[in-house]
């Protein structure tokens, strides 16, 4: 029974991998954690011309890299900038320009995530067997097929009701009214400085950017404290800081923090307009 089961497994495994060898772009992530791993694996395993990389949290994760030439978005939803920075460091792939989201530098990196991506046992095997990658799971294949067959590939719309926005905004306003833990912030910024120094030593240009959030949160104590701490640690004389000016269209957001679809289009227009200032193609 054991031998027969292993035989069935081998047939299924080789057969499923064959599909992915023949159709390499048949992939889909069912949720944000799979998406985080899929992005890291794509960054690590796939060859590409790497002009710039974005690292950040879920705020930056929605930025569509396909509309930005030579960009790779390594931002991780539900996780932190340090996850993206660590993936880059361990993979040894250093871009010319690194965009670091400045909104939430306090979140810790996810060691389980990094252990998954860089598992010594699976690292080499994923290069040979694409079925082992996070976005090739059989459960996601109906969506992968739909993506492949659909001519109009749109991301899942991020729409919300006015009631939901109000509910989440109330919660965010309470959270943003509190100042961050100064000791922890100091420690995390020290960690960030180490990463920045490392990437600079590899010839990478660092640009910080603040993702615009709901106008009622922008000047609240938490956001102000973060902005101040970031600019003190990384002075604008040395590190360009891409802020979203007040003159631009305000963000409605889906929950106070994250872009809705309209916000995303607006921000992408602004972001692309700013790229030539950093000698990057729009």
């Amino acid at each position, binding site marked *: 029974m054991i031998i027969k089961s292993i035989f069935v497994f081998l047939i299924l495994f080789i057969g499923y991998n064959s599909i992915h060898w023949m159709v390499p772009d048949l992939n889909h992530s069912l949720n944000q954690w799979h998406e985080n791993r899929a992005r890291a694996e794509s960054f690590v395993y796939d060859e590409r011309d790497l002009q710039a990389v974005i690292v950040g949290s879920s705020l930056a994760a929605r930025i569509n890299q396909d509309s930005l030439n030579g960009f790779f978005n390594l931002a991780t939803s539900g996780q932190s900038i340090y996850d993206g920075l660590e993936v880059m460091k361990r993979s040894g792939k250093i871009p010319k320009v690194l965009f670091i989201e400045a909104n939430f530098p306090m979140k810790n990196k996810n060691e389980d995530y990094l252990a998954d991506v860089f598992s010594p046992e699976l690292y080499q095997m994923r290069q040979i067997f694409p079925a082992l990658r996070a976005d090739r799971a059989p459960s996601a294949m109906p969506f992968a097929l739909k993506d492949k067959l659909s001519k109009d590939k749109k991301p*899942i719309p991020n729409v*919300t009701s006015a009631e939901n926005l109000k509910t989440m905004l109330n919660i965010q306003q309470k959270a943003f009214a509190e100042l961050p833990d100064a000791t922890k912030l100091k420690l995390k910024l020290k960690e960030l400085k180490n990463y920045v120094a490392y990437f600079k030593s590899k010839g990478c240009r660092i640009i910080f950017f603040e993702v615009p959030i709901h106008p009622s949160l922008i000047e609240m104590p938490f956001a102000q404290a973060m902005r101040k701490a970031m600019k003190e640690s990384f002075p604008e004389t040395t590190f360009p800081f891409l802020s979203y000016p007040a003159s631009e269209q305000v963000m409605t957001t889906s929950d106070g923090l994250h872009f809705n679809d309209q916000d995303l289009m607006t921000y992408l227009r602004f972001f692309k307009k700013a790229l030539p200032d950093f000698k990057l193609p729009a």
Partner: protein
Amino acid sequence: MLFNSFVFVWLALATFAIYYLKPLRNYQIPVLIVSSLIFYAYNNPWLLILLIASVAINVLTSYAVVYGNPKNRKFWAVTGVVINLALLAFFKYSPLISHSLFLPDSSIGEFLLQIPLPIGISFYTFEGISLLVDVFKEKYFKGSDVTPPSLFKHFNRSLFFISFFPHLIAGPILKAHQFYPQMDTVKYFKDIDWKGVFKLLIMGYFLKMVLADNLKDYTYWISYPYFQTFSTPALITMLFGYSCQIFSDFAGYSLIAIGLAKVFGYELLANFNFPYISTTFQDFWKRWHISLSSFLQEYLYIPLGGNKKGKVRTYLNLMITMFLGGLWHGAAWSYAVWGLFHGGALALERMVKPYFSLPDRFLFRWFKRLFVFGFVTLAWLLFKLPDFDQVLKYLQTMNAHWTMGMSVRELKICYGLMVFSIPVVIYHVMYLLRDHPVFNWYRKFEYVVYGLLLFLLVVNSGTSGSFIYFQF
């Protein structure tokens, strides 16, 4: 160290390679002890101090029960049990004591909040209690059968009983009278039931890594404040998914533990027996976390009087047992409330049974099954949301969002929930069909099923996460 980590696989393989070597046959228990201590200390070596101290307390007090002054037997047994419970209370319930009895700024309150929770303490203190009670009562064996005259040998055997890595940090909770007799024989490679081990490990890892680890990514949204933005159908689906997740996580772990123990020649009793097919709450507790419910029955419910002291006392004993059983799960009042819910259900069922029961027919059986499942699922909310006010908010939101349309994102979440919950339903239905002729097809092509499970284990596992019951 997690069962689903590569470092554990290497440790298990290395242990297995040494264990059955002919020259080391007389050292099988020390080999497993060393392996178990490495397993436990891997992430935090300081935890070993408490584990060994707990074992030492149980060894000394049980030794005193057997070989000390016969007049003091009860004293030593009670002392050992009290110390076990005191250790558990100190390390596990200090945050609850702090929040409940002290002001937020008080120094005692702050001190209590800092006390770490050693992993597995709920399990190994109960096993220590089992050893003490079994040698005191001598219901299954004479104390000296289990407690050798050599204190060193008794320490070794007890350290093995408590630290044996398959069950150390999340059960099944072993009872001394079930495990000690197994230590008396040498284990041989030729006696390994490979087919049994294979099936247990594959099913266990599938339940844990494919079902539970994927489901956790979708039931994440049950957390506060996210659930407040979901529609009622999505909230109900998430709750159903969580019910399947907690089963898959815990039953999966138990199957892995039983399979691993089997590899080394030890039989652990089943911890889950298809609990979601239960048609009564009494039946549910004979199928869910069997090792805990049987421990509570033998060492708490029966000593309290069980059902031998009249109806009112029986209901009270049920409530006390389930209240403490709930509190065992965590240092939060929500777990105690969860226990009380189940205690209340058991008591009410017992009260009503003589006067009212549904006919034992197919539709009525399914009605009862769904009723019990629905109650159990709703009660799991107290596990997922330990803040009681968040539980109430969840229920309020469920009630208020019936007319809210489901977004594309919600539909995708529900798709994921159903994909990884349906196998749990199939798992239970297959058990119900085990005597049906259709099951003969399953038996004939069982290898195809296990081959498929192994395939999904390799290519469709979720992002890694620790076992839910590790937090208890």
